[in-house]
């Protein structure tokens, strides 16, 4: 009889992991095709249209680069906290709160302040807002060890209700035909774009942050503390690292980055506050960080892939009338498949005839 035994690998190489990640994505694409067929959309023409209309056109690439901007930031935000084994499932809420504060500045000072002043001001304010939104779970975690997965997630719903309050209430545009939207921001409050393209510069913030964070983690004292504590919390504790302080710092910085995503999204794409400014980018950040195992290049690579999922999903909404839930379904399947195949990266399979 054939016996299969699992032998634990000491470490999983980057190539092994990447190989299995790509295989998982492929499996998710195949299963996704089955679901497409179940709702009467021909999977071949659906996937074909994503290739031809998203990957082969300049409009498609513009959309991809635009979509990468918030995803890169949430991916970096989640990955940063994950370095210390902290789950920030609240990037979504931090993004929304960042957007609220950005809107407040844009509506009050947009018409009287030049771009050179108001853009940095909004960036700083959105980051402070995101950090404050993350501070509540951070303090609860550091001080009382309250499960941050649940608290960061619940904060999302609070932030989304807060946005609803403003767009249905005090900030509703009187000329907006009763839609729950604020008035359009003044031109000075719009994030610059690359040349004449609609692609805003938000993606540069994400790329810059990846470099900065990589440097901080590798080269600075606090970075080493984060890495040690993440690898082995006991080692961190016994080497005298102030873990409570570190938890608060890392979750707040993570929140700040997610808050910035809120700023780039409404000043770069929407130009006003409305409901559903994020289609779950905070959760996508979790998937990106997981796939990349917090590796900086991996984050960029998988962000690009998830951008295809979003832009492709929006295309299917238009061409096939499919609901946007298709995007959630796909993300769930990708994560399931990646997790399911991880065992082959972590263990070597040994076959033996007995």
């Amino acid at each position, binding site marked *: 009889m054939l016996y299969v035994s699992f032998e*634990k690998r000491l470490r999983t190489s980057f190539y092994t992991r990447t190989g299995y990640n790509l295989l998982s994505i492929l499996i998710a694409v195949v299963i996704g095709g089955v*679901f497409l067929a*179940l*709702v009467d959309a021909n999977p071949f023409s659906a996937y074909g249209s994503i290739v031809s209309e998203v990957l082969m056109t300049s409009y498609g690439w513009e959309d991809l680069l635009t979509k990468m901007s918030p995803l890169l930031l949430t991916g970096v935000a989640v990955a940063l906290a994950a370095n210390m084994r902290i*789950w920030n*499932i609240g990037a979504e809420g931090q993004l929304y709160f960042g957007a609220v504060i950005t809107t407040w500045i844009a509506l009050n000072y947009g018409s009287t302040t030049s771009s050179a002043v108001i853009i940095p001001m909004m960036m700083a304010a959105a980051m402070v807002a995101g950090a404050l939104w993350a501070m*509540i779970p951070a303090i*609860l975690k550091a001080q*009382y*060890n*309250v*499960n941050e*997965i*649940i*608290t960061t*997630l*619940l*904060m*999302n*719903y*609070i932030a989304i*209700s*807060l946005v*609803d*309050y403003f767009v*249905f*209430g005090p900030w509703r545009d009187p000329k907006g035909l009763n839609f729950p939207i604020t008035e359009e921001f003044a031109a000075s409050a719009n994030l610059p774009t690359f040349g004449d393209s609609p692609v805003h510069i938000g993606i540069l913030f994400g790329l810059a942050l990846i470099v900065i964070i990589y440097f901080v983690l590798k080269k600075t004292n606090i970075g080493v503390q984060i890495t040690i504590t993440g690898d082995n919390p006991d080692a961190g504790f016994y080497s005298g690292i102030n873990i409570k302080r570190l938890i608060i710092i890392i979750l707040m910085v993570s929140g700040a980055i997610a808050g910035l995503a809120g700023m780039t999204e409404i000043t770069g794409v929407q130009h006003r506050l409305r409901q559903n400014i994020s289609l*779950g980018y905070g*959760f996508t950040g*979790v998937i990106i960080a*997981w796939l990349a195992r917090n590796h900086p290049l991996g984050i960029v690579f998988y962000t690009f892939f998830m951008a295809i999922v979003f832009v492709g999903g929006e295309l299917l909404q238009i061409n096939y009338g*499919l*609901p*946007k*839930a*298709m*995007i*959630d*379904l*796909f*993300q*769930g*399947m990708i*994560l*399931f498949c990646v*997790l*399911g*195949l*991880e*065992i082959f990266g*972590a263990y070597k399979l040994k076959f033996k005839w007995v």
Partner: protein
Amino acid sequence: MNGFGVEFIILTFIASVKMGTPLLFATMGGVVNERSGVVNLGIDGLMLVGALTAFVVKLNYDSTWLAVLAAALVSAAVALIHALVCISLRANQIASGLALGLFGVGLSGLFGAPYVGKSIVALPDIAVPVLSSIPLLGRVLFQQDGLVYFSFFCVALTWYLLFYTRTGLNLRSTGEAPEVSNSIGLSVTKYRYMAVWVGGLLIGVGGAYFPLVLTSFWVDNLTAGRGWIAVALVIFAFWHPGKALLGAYLFGAALALQLRLQLLGVKMSPYFLEMLPYVLTILVLTLATIRYNIKGVSQMPAALGLTFVKGEKH
């Protein structure tokens, strides 16, 4: 309506039980799940799958019991993906739970799209003879719909099964000390699969309650994140079905009060009232955690969230 009268309070209590019942089912499901050592963060997604299944079955076959049964079975089947990934394939339970949540939201949204805008007849209330004439309590607890009574039965049943049977003891032992369970010849894998499956059944019924009683229609994300409140309630309930009942009704009260204050025309934005249950959840979770810290004894299953591999130390 003349403000805060006795009638207002009774009506609020009745609504609290109704709003709390889906949370009760879901929390019980979470309790069974986590008692075996497996965390399930995908409760909200499973509830949505259950909700859509119940709605579609009720719409097509007009049978409430068939709808509830189908919701339970479909939700439990989807929960088995989580079991496969984090028990057999040894993946991280937290990540797998998040995948399950997204998958459930996506699945229900995709297949639910054609059903948006249709509606069903809500489950009627049935007064229980004798019991319903108890003053106050009778009206609150025994003039409810059938699913509320079914939830009482499920609380008693899970309580009994978990704490007074051999199977329950074995299940709890796999959550406390899987090495020990394994060494006395129990299959940790079998008990954990069973717990995830039974948890999925209960969570599915919780989801079914939304369209069958509370809304009568289907809309994307019908549960509005209530599943996450259930995740927190499992901790608040100290992994016990009896305390889950108290916790669920407490949150039911917060949700009911939110609606009833709006009816009364209290001058507060509905969007701030919407935040109330989530703020309350964070507060209660914090208090429950602080209580552990002070008492120093946690009722949390000791092996919760840990992957068990025969012959391997975590």
